[in-house]
């Protein structure tokens, strides 16, 4: 059946409707996970709050393992999904810049908007800076253009590069994520004496 767009089950006109719905759900989950607080987000860098790692690892392993099962049941054709092309060195540099911005600003782009939504001024300033940055980057793009498009590896996956099957990656990643989940909980418990444990 899936993916829905390439198979023509949903046509392109629905792009914005789906983007809006997904945006609302994504924003809700970010806020519900506590990502609208810059203390929660930067806590991972200072070693007292690992909610970012846990939420993102949970999202990644659920999506990873889930998609493999979807493929197995025939609901999603993994060979047809869009894979973002890899530009190795620009992506590494971009990741570093993003990380630095993360620590300094206390938000990533998405979470800054959830912070605005609950009325945080620092989130608003962050978002203004975000658009200023985009504007400056766009104007100075010719300076970076050669670097920006360098090291194009095409639409590759880890399986293409290493030859190890996706299932093994999902398995290994799940083990790492679960270990991180429990490990960070223990660290948090030791560091934060006044931690409130979340239940569900």
């Amino acid at each position: 059946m899936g993916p829905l767009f390439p198979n023509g089950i949903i046509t392109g006109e629905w792009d914005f409707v789906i983007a809006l719905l997904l945006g609302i759900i994504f924003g809700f989950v970010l806020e519900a996970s506590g990502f609208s607080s810059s203390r929660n987000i930067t806590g991972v860098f200072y070693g007292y709050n690992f909610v970012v790692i846990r939420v993102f690892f949970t999202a990644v392993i659920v999506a990873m393992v889930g998609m493999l099962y979807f493929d197995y049941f025939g609901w999603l054709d993994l060979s047809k999904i869009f894979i973002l092309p890899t530009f190795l060195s620009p992506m590494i540099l971009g990741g570093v810049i993003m990380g630095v911005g993360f620590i300094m600003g206390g938000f990533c782009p998405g979470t800054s908007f959830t912070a605005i939504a609950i009325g945080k001024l620092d989130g608003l300033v962050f978002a203004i800076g975000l658009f200023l940055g985009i504007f400056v980057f766009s104007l100075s793009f010719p300076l970076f253009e050669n670097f920006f498009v360098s090291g194009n590896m095409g639409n590759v996956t880890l399986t293409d590069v290493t030859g190890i099957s996706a299932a093994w990656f999902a398995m290994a990643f799940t083990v790492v994520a679960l270990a991180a989940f429990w490990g960070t909980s223990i660290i948090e418990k030791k560091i934060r004496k006044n931690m409130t444990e979340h239940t569900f």
Partner: protein
Amino acid sequence: MNRNYIYLTILMFILAVGTLVIKKANEPKQIEPQQLLFELIQPTRYVSTDQVAKMIIKNDPSLEIIDVRSAMEFNRFSLPRSVNVPLDSLLNNTSSYLGIAGTKVVFVSDNDIAADQAWVITKRLGVKSTYVMKGGLNQWMETIIDPKQPDPTEPYTAFETYAFRQGAQLYFTGSKAEAMESSKIKVEVQRKKKSGGASGGC
């Protein structure tokens, strides 16, 4: 620690291990359904028995006839130069017979139903230049082995085809062509009687 976290961790771990176990059946690569439907409604996949006969007689090296009937039927009667690949074992032998560049694969069966099935299967697998002999071996019997003389009112091309089929019949069966009836009539040479002596005159 909350007990639910432990359950969830175990569940997630089991699911992740499960991905190693699940193996997709090794499905062969297939063409898009739209493409298949498009090809399916084209009549160009059919070749007539006359065309096949012509290619056999001319010993066309690009022709490859695949007989999809059972081995028993194949042994009883088959077209010259045809190979027997029964429909149910078609997928086992595809690599050796199909997809050879420059060959035209013609599927043959009693009628064209089984041959058409073979065509669809191979087309789905993306094999190029495959054809079906229209009407199959039944049609072959009617047209090549036992051709009917066309009505006198039929167009000239029908007679041309008939002439070819007669030649083909000769080629494939080795029987003598029926002699035309007109050749049986004895032509008697009428000689002028010699006139004996003068008979009057000036």
